[in-house]
């Protein structure tokens, strides 16, 4: 599903060049749940941004769902609409919209509109009773679950989550990672999560460690809680 080879990202600043990612090699199969771990500044977010088409790699090969990565804006927009769903540490819900409207937000930019699917997703994340509530009326864990439902609205094949539990307590964090594992196992969703929490990373099928823009180690063994 995801295949990256020699993936490199360098930021050219006036005073220096910052090598955020250095020749990354990564392969995630369909339905796998992968965790990327590493300290702050290791390049986890940059890697997820490249995988999701939010940013452009300086060089390297990237294939998603058997398609070569394309530099064109229109192709990247299509990728974000059809192939990839994003979950961020900040929930980034629109405060003026209800939970249901936030989940249906991606439909604004596509020709499809599937209210029933949006309601099913909210039910799947346990928010049936909260669909008409605004973000200000939801807890942090509930907001993140709405954000996950929104990421799944366009039926993506890949879910990318950048520190999704950074603002949650341990109970809600475990709930979210358990949800990811269920999604990968029951729906065959390919999931890549960036986290610095080793205990949570144990939910994943395998873990890669990133340091100073390089993958320093990785394991394909299922985590302790798997």
């Amino acid at each position: 599903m995801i295949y990256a080879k020699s993936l490199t990202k360098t930021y050219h600043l006036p005073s220096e060049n910052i090598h955020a990612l250095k020749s990354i090699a990564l392969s995630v199969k369909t339905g796998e749940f992968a965790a990327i771990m590493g300290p702050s500044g290791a390049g986890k977010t940059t890697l997820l941004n490249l995988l999701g088409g939010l940013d452009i790699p300086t060089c390297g090969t990237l294939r998603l769902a058997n398609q070569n990565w394309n530099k064109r804006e229109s192709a990247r927009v299509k990728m974000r609409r059809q192939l990839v769903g994003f979950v961020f540490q900040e929930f980034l819900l629109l405060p003026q919209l209800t939970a249901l409207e936030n989940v249906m937000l991606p439909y604004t930019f596509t020709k499809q509109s599937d209210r029933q699917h949006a309601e099913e997703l909210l039910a799947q994340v346990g928010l049936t009773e909260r669909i008409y509530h605004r973000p200000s009326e939801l807890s942090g864990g509930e907001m993140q679950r709405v954000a996950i439902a929104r990421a799944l609205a366009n039926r993506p094949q890949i879910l990318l989550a950048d520190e999704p539990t950074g603002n949650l307590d341990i109970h809600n964090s475990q709930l979210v990672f358990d949800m990811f594992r269920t999604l990968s196992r029951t729906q065959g969703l390919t999931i890549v999560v960036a986290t610095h929490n080793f205990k949570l990373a144990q939910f994943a099928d395998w873990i890669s460690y990133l340091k100073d823009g390089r993958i320093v180690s990785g394991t394909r063994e299922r985590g302790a809680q798997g």
Partner: protein
Amino acid sequence: MRFLKLAYKNMFRRKIRSTLTIGGMTVAVAVLTSLLGFNRGYQQALEGDLDKLGYQLLVTAKGCPYEAATMMLSGGADLKYMDGEVAKKISRDPRIEHSLPQLIHAVYDPDRGEVGGTILYLGVSDDYLVLKPWMTFYEGSWFSTPQVMEVVMGYEVAELEQRHVGDQIFIPDTDMILTVVGIFERSGTQDDGMIFMQMDTLHKVYPHLDGKLTGLGLKVQDFSQLPQIEADLYQIPNVQVISMAQVKSTIMGLMKSAKILVMSVATIALSVAAIGVINTISMSVFERTQEIGILKAIGASKLDIFRLIWSETLLICGLGGVFGGLTAFIGGRGVEFFIRRALAYTPKGHIVVISWDLLIGSIVGATMLGVIAGIYPAIRAASMQPIEAIHRGE
């Protein structure tokens, strides 16, 4: 959720700011619409007044043309007089179909109303009804003979003085009493405020005016001969000729100058409102940087973001246009009231006319302003890189 619904919800995240911006646009559109309505209404009312004069040329004693124009439309005291013999000579011209000698005399009556008032007497001939066939009677009829001591009253003056046919009226400063034989229907012209007498009767009541006229209205046989007749009349000493076209162009010339000034003010008001809209939307884009980033992350293209921000601008300007147009429509009579108090002469009828086409034009114009005002903030939002936008907003 569609673009417009999302744009509408975004607009009301900052209720006070959006309301103030729409309010600014409303005021600007209302001012512009009222001014355009005034321009159109005044012209229509003036044309109506001039058409109802019934003649195409007015010959008066030589003097200031503006004074003459005002006199012709509203009457007045201390007027210059022309010789009645000259008028008779002009009337004999075969190119003239009808002539209407007029003698206006204004008298101050201290007993009129609570603080006194001016009564306007108009001496006319039987040709009056020929030249103004639309003047019909509410009560009674025209004078029985040319020298009879009778008056016919305009609708408004009869209503003001509570007069009916058969009543007798006392002429101030004289010992004359005249009988009311007719009251005209309301005509919507200055004639509604006049008391009509036969010319000979007026001369008898005010002997010092004998043989004098304030004006001679002329209706020509052939309209194409008008310029030649006008030129010929100019050869007569001590008279001046005013054509209706001249009167119209004189007043419209003054109106045009005022219009340019007022339109300049309205344009500035619209420009300020447009800058306010650009400022509001730009601030909104700046505050929602992270939100724009997330919209791009979930599949919004540059064009989608452009359309979204543009829609918000169009909504603000469109709503401003609708409210502004309605304000002008509803407040038109109030504007008219103030204009009538401010201007020395205003024609009869509505002088502020907010028609449907003007109303729709205002709304479309305001929306078009939104089309232009929205371009900059929309481009700025559309050109944001998603990842930079998401992190800049944190």
